[in-house]
Structures are given as structure tokens and as C-alpha cells.
């Protein structure tokens, strides 16, 4: 996950949610759950930015959609007893966070917040549908920034 890919994902996501007529915040985190890029659309409520980030963190940490984290509260599922409520300030079970997997390997996660959870998930899926196409368009061999140390 790098900034260029993240920006492309955010651009796609904002375009799609505008098409749907929704206001939302979208967060992209890397494979360790650290924030790479976050955009809040004009008019989207203020806390959505932080909640989008929480969803993305949860998806990256567990490598499953954030909605499925609530399964740990089910006594019939292995993992029962995990403290979902008070684990840390980021863990959330609200739907809208999705891991980005490339051939089974986690490369990052995406979190969407703004409308009802169902619509957040739809926006998420729409973005993920496009990701590997975007990746191909960017192509391999991105150059690293040239280092200059400015005026001396």
C-alpha cells in the first residue's frame, strides 16, 4: 500500500458515493493498520472521519470485514470471550471496514463511514471491485522520489 494507490482508491470511492448521493468519509490504512490517507467529503459529519479510520484498522488487524468481528461474541464460534467491547479505542464491529487482499496476502484495508452501515458496505465493495484494475493501470516500476537537500 502506498500513497498513490490510496489516493486512487479514495478518488474512486468519493466518485462512487457522489453518484449514490451519499456523504461519507473514507480511510485507507496499510497492512499494519496505520493510516495512509483519509478524506472527509464536504458536509459529512465530523466523527465519520475517525470512525472510518477505526473500521479500517479493525479490518486490517483481523483480516476480515469489520462486521464479522462481532462473531467473537458468539459462544459457538472459536474465539469466544475476546473482549470486543473494550479491547482498545479503535476496535469496532460496525460494518464498513474491508481488508484489501491480493492473492490472500493483506496489503491494506479500507474503511467507509457516513451513511447506514449497509450503504457503507456497498461503497466499500464498489471501491474494492476497482482496485486491481487501478493497480494495473498504474503499472509496475514506480520510481522513488529523487533526493535533494535544497539550498545550502
Amino acid at each position, binding site marked *: 500500500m*502506498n*500513497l*498513490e494507490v*490510496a*489516493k486512487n482508491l479514495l478518488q474512486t470511492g*468519493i466518485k462512487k458515493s457522489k453518484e449514490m448521493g451519499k456523504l461519507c468519509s473514507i480511510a485507507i490504512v496499510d497492512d*499494519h493498520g*496505520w*493510516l*495512509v*490517507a*483519509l*478524506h*472527509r*467529503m*464536504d458536509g459529512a459529519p*465530523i466523527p465519520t*472521519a*475517525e470512525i472510518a479510520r477505526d473500521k479500517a484498522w479493525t479490518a486490517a488487524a483481523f483480516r476480515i470485514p469489520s462486521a464479522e468481528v462481532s462473531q467473537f461474541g458468539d459462544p459457538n464460534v472459536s474465539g469466544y470471550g475476546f473482549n470486543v467491547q473494550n479491547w482498545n479505542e479503535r476496535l469496532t464491529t460496525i460494518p464498513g471496514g474491508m481488508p484489501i487482499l491480493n492473492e490472500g496476502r493483506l496489503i491494506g484495508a479500507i474503511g467507509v463511514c457516513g451513511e447506514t452501515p449497509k450503504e457503507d458496505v456497498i461503497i466499500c465493495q464498489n471501491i474494492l471491485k476497482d482496485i486491481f484494475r487501478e493497480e494495473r493501470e498504474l503499472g509496475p516500476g514506480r520510481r*522513488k*522520489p*529523487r*533526493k*535533494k*537537500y*535544497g*539550498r*545550502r
Partner: protein
Amino acid sequence: MKELTLELALKMLEAAERWAKDIAGFSCSIAVVDKAGAVIAVHRMDGAAMATTDIAIEKAWTAVAFKMPTLMGSRWLDPRNMGKLMGDHAMGMIGRGKGRLCFIPGGIPVADEENEVIGAIGCSGVPSGVGDISDTSVSQAGVTALYE
């Protein structure tokens, strides 16, 4: 230009990133907040340290909350300025604002034509002390792009 939109924020971020990459040569995180201090957009450049996003957001928040660059606030907290103008009352600032107050230089407020603060930009991750290169100058590149 009455309020910062996502479009304007991205314009600022793009210019600041270009400055950080091509002229400073360091990777950093840059955040833009609106006049309420709420995040509009955050970018972490490739290779920048992970915790810098939070610091960039806090710098921008502080800049908009105090309506001044965090560079000025950092002068308050400098113990060498004790007894000088605005230098000896500011140690109580540490830990204010529910822990969000961050007087590290790098946050700059953005004003409209009527000189009303409409938002702020914050940058973190650039080591200071090499010529003009610092977090503040990266933020300044973003602010300059807004008025072009």
C-alpha cells in the same frame, strides 16, 4: 473562498507533497482541517513514519484553535524565553485541550479574504535544522498553493 472544501484541501496537499518530495527530499504526513478543527484530508507519504499522521492532525488542530501558527506557540513553551514577552506564562499549556494541544512547529492556519480563519494545514515528519527545510515550510507550500 468561504470555507475549505475537499477539493481545495487536496490542492493544498498536492502542492505540499510536491514540495516535500522534490525540494525537501523527506517523506512526511500532511493534514488539512476545517474551521472546526475537524479533519478534511490526511495523507501519509511513502516512507514517512507511522505516527506522524496523528501529530500532523494535532498540529493543524492547534493552529486553527489558536488562530496562529504553532511555531508561535512553540516560542511560548521554550524555557529560554522565560521572562520575555509572552514567554513566562505558557508552561501550563502543556497537556491542555484534552491532550490534543501540540505546539510543535508545523501547523499553519488558513485565512480567507476577510482575514477569518477557515482552516489549517499541519505537517509532521520533516527534520528541522537543515536550511529552510522544516515542517513549517512544507505547510507553507500548501498554504501558498491555496492563494494562487
